[in-house]
């Protein structure tokens, strides 16, 4: 069996928080990510969903090498991407790239599009001017921009166009994995579909694997093959998107999906039909989750385990 493209194994990220007291008094530990494991296959789109502060962005930063894991391993084609033996920024850059949420903050206002795209190529040893301009032209065409627009600066573009530039920059080094951090949530609703379709086209054309971080479940539903639901730094449920959206088992997942605005329900005087199919839990097992409680991020979570309740569909349950 070949190694998976990306494998995250029991990832923990804990932050020491200084309490402001003298000599470290009041120092606490923030448990941001507590034992996340997943695999990303070639050509797949895996979405991580969850509320703000659930650790989904921290997980992404660890994969990008911007946040060192406290524990656990991240492997790319079986090779370590974190900890000892990890590659430098340069090798990692050719494996994993990121598309950022805010297209206004993600482009340097003082660099033209051409500079933004040419500098990484030059950094990675491509110095021939003709090759650089060829690759930029191809990449701009890929994201639906014209070569003439290369000499312009970010402020001359709309939000949607900026996001296209951000996508072009993420793809210019031809990575296999692209982390999409809320790729459309900062865009106008009218532009979102265009960018989503562009991302899906590029995925097919270039054989990309996406790891999407999102709380916009309608985008997740549209793009992903598999969904990972995170709560308080742990995966509470994971499975193929059809399973997650039609028969979510975990109460947190159910609440997330029920929160998707439903125009038909609004017409129905706000009454929302129960649309989930019931899921049978293994006998004698229950969730370790109380609706409406905020997680204590300063304590390690109580022990629990992921149990497979259907093919590839796992849900977190309390230990017996």
């Amino acid at each position, binding site marked *: 069996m070949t190694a998976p493209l990306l494998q995250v194994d029991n990832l923990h990220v804990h932050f020491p928080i200084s309490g402001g007291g003298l000599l470290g008094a009041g120092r606490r530990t923030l448990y941001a990510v507590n034992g996340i494991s997943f695999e990303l296959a070639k050509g797949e789109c895996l979405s991580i969903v969850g509320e703000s502060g659930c650790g989904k962005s921290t997980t992404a930063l660890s994969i990008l090498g*911007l946040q060192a894991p406290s524990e656990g391993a991240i492997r790319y084609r079986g090779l370590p991407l974190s900890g000892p033996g990890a590659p430098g920024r340069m090798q990692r850059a*050719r494996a994993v790239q*990121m598309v*950022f949420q805010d297209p206004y903050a*993600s482009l*340097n206002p003082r660099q033209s599009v051409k500079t933004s795209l040419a500098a990484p190529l030059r950094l990675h040893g491509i110095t021939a001017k003709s090759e650089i301009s060829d690759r930029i032209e191809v990449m701009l065409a890929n994201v639906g921009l014209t070569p003439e627009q290369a000499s312009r600066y970010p402020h001359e573009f709309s939000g949607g166009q900026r996001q296209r530039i951000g996508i072009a920059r993420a793809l210019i*080094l031809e990575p296999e994995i692209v982390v999409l951090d809320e790729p459309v949530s900062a865009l106008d609703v009218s532009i979102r579909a265009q960018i989503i379709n562009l991302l899906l086209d590029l995925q097919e054309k270039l054989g990309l694997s996406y790891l999407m971080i999102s709380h916009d479940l309608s985008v997740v539903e549209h793009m992903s093959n598999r969904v990972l639901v995170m709560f308080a730094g742990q995966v509470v449920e994971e499975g193929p998107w059809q399973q997650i959206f039609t028969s979510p088992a975990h109460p947190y997942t159910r609440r997330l999906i029920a929160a998707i605005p439903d125009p038909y329900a609004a017409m129905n005087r706000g009454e929302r039909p129960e649309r989930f199919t019931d899921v049978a839990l293994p006998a004698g097992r229950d969730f370790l989750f109380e609706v409406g409680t905020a997680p204590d991020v300063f304590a390690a979570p109580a022990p629990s385990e992921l149990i497979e309740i259907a093919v590839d569909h796992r849900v977190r349950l309390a230990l017996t």
Partner: protein
Amino acid sequence: MRLGFNFWLGAALTALVIFAGLLAPWIAPFDPVLDADLMNSELPPDATFWFGTDAQGRDVYSRILYGAQISLTVGIVSQVINSLIGITLGMTAGYWGGWWDDLVNGLTNVMLAIPSLIFALAVMAVLGPGLPSLLIALGLTNWSWTCRIARSSTLSLKSQGYVQAAQTLGYGDLRIMFSQILPNMMGPILVMATLGMGSAVLSEAALSFLGLGIQPPFPSWGSMLTDARQLIQLAPWVAIFPGLAIFLSVLGFNLLGDGLRDSLDPHMRTRNP
């Protein structure tokens, strides 16, 4: 970018000082040092000696033109040194954080706690009087505010997507600082440097007044004031014109700095329309 009246007034005064300094050898009617003539001493302003003459009979107007060279050199060189120190320390502290940040912060706080003129006096006492040591002394004194601004700008720019993007694209730390962060924080740094030029000119005048700066007979506005001290009742013009030169140039630098700040900072502009 809209620039107000203050900016243009400041720019005009600054330009006046720059032209005076650069063109002094051609437009000054007399030599500032050699054309001393005791027969002409302490003459009030007239058609020959526009700003009058001093105790040695030297033309005050010519000496002020040459003095502009000193003030400009001091203002520009000391601010370049200040900015280099402040940017280097502040940007690396903000970017790397950790113990280096703590160290730089501590150093900045110590520098802010010492009155800058006292510190400059101490440096001058070690290095001895003269223009080079004056430049070093003033260059070492006023970097703390620049450092603070560089640090806080770096902290806010570091979380911008394009800096994170540069990290994921494989850029090294120094390359990120110079290509991504520095160009985007030059606005406030430039404003600080312009405002700092004014205070550097004042400090130069103060140090020269105390006899530690430019040594006689070469003219600087501060040392001219020192010489004028005994004559202030007999020949007030010997004190008034160098004082006016200091006042107008410092006013010019400050208005220029304020104008730049207002035009670079949209929040300031809406608050003070």
